[in-house]
């Protein structure tokens, strides 16, 4: 058994992927893309912010699907996918919630607006933090998986409702891109695609890494149980 090398076996391609993706993202965002006229350089946050938001939404969708998958199939694999996706979704949402206000503060002079996308992201973050919390509190792994699945499903289901409610409540304030935002210059679009690719690649790599951790967690529980049995403790 050569367990000590396994971390590096994953680590090497991981490092290469991160370096390549990061370099491409930074190059595209910092040099390739032109400076936006009204907001200035801060608009370059866009090339990380929006891909992170898209990947966060993707992770939450995966978490909900994994939750349904687990409740139907009761397989540990679905549970590991759910565990991984909930954490990654929370990570991406955190990045969105940190970079967003920085951008907003510079561009519009306010850290936060109660705009549907922002509010929904914050609520998604809170709900999935709840799922992580439930998992930590639950005693046995089966209960943890089952209850966290329920929270993830409720969360994913709730988000469109939250979005629509906040939209009716506050209205769709700052339209930067998309309809009414004037669209993107061709170079900006290319830079955005590079950013999306780099962030998605990071997502895939992180997913595999976290999934490996989930496997290791499950193995340990089984191994400790077996050790207890050998000792006659069970």
């Amino acid at each position, binding site marked *: 058994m050569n367990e000590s090398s396994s971390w590096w076996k994953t*680590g090497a391609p991981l490092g290469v992927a991160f370096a390549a993706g990061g370099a491409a993202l930074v190059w595209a965002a910092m040099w390739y893309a032109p400076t936006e006229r009204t907001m200035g350089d801060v608009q370059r946050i866009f090339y990380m912010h929006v891909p992170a938001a898209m990947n966060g939404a993707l992770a939450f969708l995966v978490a909900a699907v994994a939750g349904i998958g687990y409740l139907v199939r009761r397989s540990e694999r679905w549970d590991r996918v759910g565990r991984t996706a909930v954490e990654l979704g929370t990570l991406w949402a955190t990045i969105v919630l940190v970079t967003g206000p920085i951008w907003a503060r510079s561009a519009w002079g306010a850290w936060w607006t109660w705009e549907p996308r922002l509010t929904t992201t914050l609520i998604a973050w809170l709900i999935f933090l709840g799922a992580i919390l439930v998992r930590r509190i639950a005693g046995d792994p089966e209960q943890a998986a089952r209850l966290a699945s329920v929270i993830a499903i409720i969360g994913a289901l709730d988000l469109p409702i939250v979005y629509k409610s906040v939209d009716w409540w506050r209205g769709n304030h700052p339209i930067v891109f998309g309809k009414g935002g004037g669209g993107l210059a061709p170079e900006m679009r290319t830079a955005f695609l590079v950013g999306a690719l780099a962030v998605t690649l990071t997502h895939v790599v992180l997913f595999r890494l976290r999934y490996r951790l989930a496997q290791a967690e499950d193995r340990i529980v089984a191994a400790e149980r077996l*050790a207890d049995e050998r000792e006659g403790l069970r």
Partner: protein
Amino acid sequence: MSTLGWMFWGYLAGIVLVAGYVAWIGARLSALERRQRRIDSELGADR
């Protein structure tokens, strides 16, 4: 702060968060692997 300065903080925050998460996974993974090896060796000695 210049718009460039704000952008810098934004990217730094994003990169630190991802790097921190990777470091956390790495730490957990190697701790678990150490524990696994200890259990394996204990079981081996028991046999």
